[in-house]
């Protein structure tokens, strides 16, 4: 067994590996390198990243060349955008400029309205070879899916390296395969949205992924109503919905975007949608009540 921790994608990352002892350190290094590769490629904050180049060319009508992996992520993001009726939108990150969740203050009048013309998946043109942001100042943010994709990709690297069982945990988004020797599943605690050191529920998974969205500490209260920290790309306002959602799926990418879409929907619609999908799920509403198919055990 090997435990390997590092910090990447602005969060704590942890790998837990089982298999032939001599190949685990190399496998762990390969998986960490894969996470760092994706961070360097898609980070908004690194000057030489692909995302920075795409955003730098916004409004210039100069297509930026992309590779198959990026085209695949755009294809996925477009599917999620369509399936969420426009709620899941990788161009909405720019709206955060108007909101300061730490202070709890409302945006300056007109600030949200000024940003809205730069938001909208329909203002992005892409094909397998290139992508163009048509509005000046528009920003594409892969943050909504790249950490989850990195989980899956790191897990795939570990599997290819011959690791027998592994758990990849990138700040709470997880992918796993195999099971620890002598067990039939990975026992995973889902973090309480308010008391981070406590588990609100446990789930046993024999493979696949678990992703969570939401953080009670980052909610905002306006006129006595609690809003989540996720912004509706159409209105520019925070969503009055669930405060935390965890979903398990075959791929962390699917689990993560499903959890995010649930956070973006009004609470009642979100619960109905999660129920209809049929994946294992857990949602916490503004009153800290738990819903879902993942058992509540403390």
């Amino acid at each position: 067994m090997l435990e390997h921790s590092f910090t990447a994608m602005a969060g704590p990352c942890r790998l837990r590996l089982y298999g032939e002892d001599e190949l685990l350190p190399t496998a762990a290094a390969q998986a960490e390198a894969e996470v760092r590769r994706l961070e360097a490629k898609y980070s908004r904050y690194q000057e030489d990243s692909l995302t920075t180049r795409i955003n730098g060319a916004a409004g210039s009508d100069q297509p930026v060349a992309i590779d198959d992996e990026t085209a695949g992520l755009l294809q996925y993001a477009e599917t999620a955008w369509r399936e969420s009726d426009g709620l899941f939108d990788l161009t909405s990150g720019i709206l955060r400029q108007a909101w300061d969740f730490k202070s709890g203050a409302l945006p300056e009048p007109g600030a949200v309205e000024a940003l809205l013309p730069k938001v909208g998946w329909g203002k992005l043109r892409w094909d397998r070879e290139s992508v163009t942001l048509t509005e000046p100042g528009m920003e594409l943010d892969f943050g909504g899916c790249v950490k989850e994709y990195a989980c899956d990709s790191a897990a795939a690297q570990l599997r290819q390296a011959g690791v027998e069982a592994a758990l990849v945990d990138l700040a709470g988004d997880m992918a796993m395969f195999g099971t620890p020797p002598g067990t039939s599943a990975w026992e995973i605690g889902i973090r309480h949205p308010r008391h981070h050191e406590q588990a609100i529920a446990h789930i046993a998974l024999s493979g696949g992924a678990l992703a969570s969205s939401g953080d009670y500490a980052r909610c905002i209260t306006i006129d006595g109503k609690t809003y989540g920290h996720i912004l509706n790309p159409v209105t520019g306002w925070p969503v009055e919905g669930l405060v935390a959602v965890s979903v398990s799926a075959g791929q962390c990418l699917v689990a993560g975007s499903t959890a995010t879409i649930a956070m973006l929907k009004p609470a009642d619609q979100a619960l109905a949608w999660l129920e209809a999908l049929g994946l294992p799920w857990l949602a916490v509403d503004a009153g800290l009540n738990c819903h879902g198919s993942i058992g509540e055990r403390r």
Partner: protein
Amino acid sequence: MAGRDTHPSLLALTSSALLLPAYQQANADAPPEFTTLGMSYSRYQEDDTQAGRTLGGDSIERYEIDVAQFYLLTPVSDDWSVALDVQWEDMSGASPWFVGLDAEGDSQVFMSGASIEDTRTTVSVNTRYYFDRGNAGFTYTRSDEDDYESDAVAFDGSYNSADGLTTWSAAVSASFDDIEPTQGATPTNTLEDSKDVYGGYLGVSRIISKRAILRFGLSYTYRNGFLTDPYKLQDSRPGTRKEWAVSSGYRHFFAGPNAALHVDYRYFDDDWGIASHTVDLAWWQNLGRKTQLVPFLRYYTQDEADFFSNTPDFSDRYFADDYRLSAFGGITTGLRVRHTVGNWTLNATGERYTTSEDFGIYSGDESPALVKYWRYSIGFDYSFR
């Protein structure tokens, strides 16, 4: 996940996600990462002929074959691999010479006597090119024995669909064989002759769920030249043979017992009047992570060739009393064990084949020469990680 009852949104998200490179590594075509070397030994032993069905009364020892095999597969670059396969076979024993009738009118086999002793060396070289969505290979095989030489070439390729769930494959092959029967104990049907064999295959396999794969294939083979058995007394066959085969297979993994069921079926038909069905069942049981136990069962049945008879009429244009052209059924039962220790993988197989006209679904004269055999093999692979 992506079953019939899956919510359309989840289906759309999942199938879109699976197009990304991270999910295709498992299916991606890449050359082997390590050089693998393998060696094996196997022994094939036919049961003695039945005393009551052999002319002269005594049972006679039939064929025995000892096979040693050496195998090497190595990557030569990011997208090429080469493989070498060498096989030595040592064959000895008697084979059926002809079938005749005894005083009671029952058919009896007359064996050639323990005169046959031959060795065959087969060398096969393969090179394979791997690209994003598939691979393509070329194989040259040379086989050499005292009375037979063969040169064969084959091209094959496979191509994966964008979603990685479907694989199409195709192959063409040609073989050019020279026959020069050993002169000695029995007269032969020719002194020197040749035949060519051409074949083609088209197949498709599809991952139909997280745990199941379905495969389907069509093949055609054309043989042209001296197809008669040179050593059999009563044997005269057409100079061409056209063969078709349809095959299908299903693999299902069961998480509970940690095992996979393999079911395969093949239907064969040719213009000599032979049709056959083959059903293979195998249960691949994992025992922990390092050991696999595979019990298997095969059922085979074929119809006789139009010109087969235990009592050939020599005025016919074609005739043969070869048991391999008669109507019969055969059952093979066996067990394979595979165990991995570090870089070593050890394999052992034992199987028993029994045959009878009664096992078949087609009716015809039972050949007294039908064969039963045991086969054992043991071998290892070593990966240079």
